[in-house]
């Protein structure tokens, strides 16, 4: 089976890479593009540690073939900050100690960004159900939810 050429936009930059047909988008990001921020926690779409945003849609990159990325716009954790200026979500996660080991954090941050893009003023329950696909075993979620809602408030403020 010969490799397949894929070109896509990752974090705003045009990229090209070769994939075996069976390679997932997560494998391509990590092994072909050296973007190791997205993590594999389960490989079956049950933990969310591999969450990225494809054409504005939050998805598990382990449940998407790399070949399907042809021509698509992909956002990963490595593109969330603006240069060395952290995104409000990244800053609030640090301020609220919303991470301990940090393994789930990239996935949680991408999911939170997708949430705030769609819903700038989510309730606690809306945040919890939106993030239900991002497992965290260290924090018990409390500080993650507070950090997301605090960031949402700051971002609404900034828009005024």
């Amino acid at each position, binding site marked *: 089976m010969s490799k397949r050429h894929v070109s896509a936009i990752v974090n705003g930059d045009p990229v090209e890479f070769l994939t075996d047909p069976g390679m*997932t988008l997560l494998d391509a990001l990590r092994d072909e593009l050296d973007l190791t921020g997205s993590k594999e926690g389960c490989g079956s779409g049950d933990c969310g540690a591999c969450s990225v945003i494809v054409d504005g*849609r939050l*998805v598990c990159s382990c449940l998407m073939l790399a070949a399907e990325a*042809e021509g698509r716009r992909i956002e990963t954790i490595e593109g969330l900050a603006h240069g060395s200026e952290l995104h409000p979500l990244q800053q609030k996660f640090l301020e609220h100690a919303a991470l301990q080991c940090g393994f789930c954090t990239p996935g949680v941050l991408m999911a939170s960004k997708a*949430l705030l893009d769609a819903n700038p003023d989510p309730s606690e329950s809306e945040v919890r159900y939106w993030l*239900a696909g991002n497992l965290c075993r260290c924090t018990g979620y409390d500080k993650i939810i507070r950090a997301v809602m605090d960031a949402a408030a700051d971002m609404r403020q900034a828009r005024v």
Partner: protein
Amino acid sequence: MPQFDYLAPSTAEEAARALAITGARALAGGTDLLVQLRAGRIAPAAIVDLKRVPGATGIREESGGFVIGAATSGATIGEHAALVRAWPGVVEAASLIGSTQVQGRATLAGNLCNASPAADSVPALIAARAICVIVGPAGRREATAETIATGPGKTSLAPGEFVLEIRLPKRPARASDAYLRLIPRTEMDIAVVGAGVNLVLDGAGVITDAHVALGAVAPTARLVPEAGAALVGHKLDAAALDRLDAAARAACQPISDKRGTIEYRTKIAGVLARRAAVIAYQRAGGRV
């Protein structure tokens, strides 16, 4: 990771030809297919991505009903205001499939053709009397949702056939539907039991048409005619609900597995059928 060809046809006919290759599998959202692929449960010779086939994605209103591209993601379905108003049950069933991330990919066709007895969208599609437009080497045909799955992981599709669209019929006034499921957590689980109810009421709140479908209580999701019949001609009073509960339980042929026991699933089928009926009845303007 097994090796196979990845094909992304741009016409329905091309897709049908590709799918006719022995060992070819259709890919829409991939949230079931890739899990089975990585677990080595399937080793397809080719994967045929349907998302670039015209009509496979997108939602349009047609002669009062809705036509949903079978490869449309659950997230897109959940955001379609008119569809949500007309078919809240079908939409909530589609939106319960997996996490937000899975919603970004999972599709009605995938959920239907993966043929899991516990598929979330299928009981609602069956209760809605949804029609599947199937394309294959021999052309197009239509089939009701309940005829697609024939057993766990098995479908009635012939080689080369795939579901292109799903049609939901025109809604009369005072009609609505609902879908409920029982899971141990609040998200992320496979349904232990699922129940879809679709009702039409007359001006006085009497049920004139009723369809009830159950998931995870038999080898496939199934329409339960007796349950619907138990409601037609009545208001949604206690007696009607009791009859519905009994009919739902009678239709159960569940298994005991890591998610639930036979006894439990049977009881819960009655509970969810009743609750879904109440929600559908109220959405249709009835007062309980």
